[in-house]
């Protein structure tokens, strides 16, 4: 367990190293890259014509239904991992598999219902 926590020290080390790497890259860029900003260069690219419309627009985000499904199944996964981990060693046996099956089946019924209602087709 101790060695496991020590592993995170390497993660910390790599994080610091990564910050250093990014900083170094940006310094190199500062030194090597030319700088000659102009109006046309700083304009937003829209296929070579002036961008139409303002900076802020409200637009349809069409993946809401999928996002809901995603949240549901991701939460499911949270329960799944601990169970998956101890299934072999703890002797939970067949009963736990059936219980997990029922749990997932409920989700699947929900998925089937969503599909039947046409939520999963592109709006």
């Amino acid at each position, binding site marked *: 367990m101790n060695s496991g926590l020590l592993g995170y020290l390497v993660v910390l080390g790599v994080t610091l190293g990564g910050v250093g790497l990014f900083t170094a890259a940006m310094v190199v860029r500062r030194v090597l890259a030319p700088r000659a900003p102009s109006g046309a260069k700083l304009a937003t690219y*829209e*296929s*070579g*014509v002036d*961008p*139409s*419309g*303002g900076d*802020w*627009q*409200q*637009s*349809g*985000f*069409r993946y*809401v*239904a999928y996002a*809901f499904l995603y949240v549901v199944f991701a939460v499911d996964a949270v329960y799944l991992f601990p169970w998956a981990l101890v299934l072999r060693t703890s002797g939970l046996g067949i009963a736990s598999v059936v219980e997990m099956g029922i749990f997932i089946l409920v989700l699947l019924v929900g998925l089937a219902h969503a599909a039947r*209602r*046409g*939520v999963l087709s*592109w*709006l």
Partner: protein
Amino acid sequence: MSTSARELTVGMGAGGLATSDMVLNIGPQHPATHGVLRLRITLDGERITKCEPIVGYMHRGAEKLFEVRDYRQILVLANRHDWLSAFSSEIGVCLAVERALGMEVPERATWTRTLLSELNRVLNHLMFLGSYPLELGAITPMFYVFREREELQAVMEEIAGGRLHYMFNRIGGLRDDIPAGWLDRAAEAVATVRRRMPEIESFIVGNPILNARTKGVGVITPAMVEQYGISGPIARAAGVDVDLRRDDPYLAYGELFSPGGPGRVITRPEGDSLARLEVLLDQTHVSLDLADACIEKLRSLPQGPVNVKLPKVLKVPEGSGYAATENPLGFNGYYLVSRGEKTPWRLKLRSASFNNMSCLGEVMEGELLADMVAILGSMFFVVGDIDK
């Protein structure tokens, strides 16, 4: 953006959020438009609610330039608007002028013209067979078709000296006779391309992703074909059985498309992007067969002149006439009005891509942005042919 009050309803399914539409320019400088075509698209999410093609970024005033060139010079211009069908476009001008002059073109020249037209068609179709998958994200077919194109380009270059703008036609015939041994090399190139076609097809035919992207996407109906004057492979993919090579024979097509001849008109009933691609693929095979038939015929023809001696100043008698050819992309017509001068008074160019493109607004409506490229690529256009 308007700041007017918006109705806001949150919900799943068909209700959704009331949002303002986003106007997005695709082109003139965009990787999808292979040229300088511009589409002004109004998007609701990724759904296209309106699409407006804006053309003219490449307008070179071809028709006006025709009016100040003599007929020999016009040929140089005429093969430039559609740079993938240069030879076929030259033919149109020649036919218009020759018909106005009542000129008889030697048979040898006619068959050579037919052969080169078909090779040009294969070159054109191969290009689109490669570029269409490329727009859908498959990079490799492009390199395969360019290998095949290279085979044909080599024989075209040998006979004409050019690889893209052949400038091999003259009023009344061709510039030169066929070089010694060229027919054998052309036959070999055609055979090579035919042998390797399955390699290209293996990328395109039956690929589940390609089918999913193109089936039922961008459907063009026969009514739209008539409405917009769509022609060529796009019209035939919509089930409209029209091909000038058979319906209004020019060059040697009358014989090639006669019963029992190698000529076939390929049609598909579906009208979607997949059908357009399949028509192109099948037409390539037909054109290879036609090229073979032309080569055989040319072998049997006796040596003889390939052009007509022209006067120093070529004047077309007063009058008007229309000559249309079945270019690789569709009808390509020249309406020639002459006042008896050495230049035409007016030479109207009817190009295939311009008409074919005009239906985009209707076809795109209601499709997804991702399908935009699937449709655009399957419309097989050359921007120069649109803008002239």
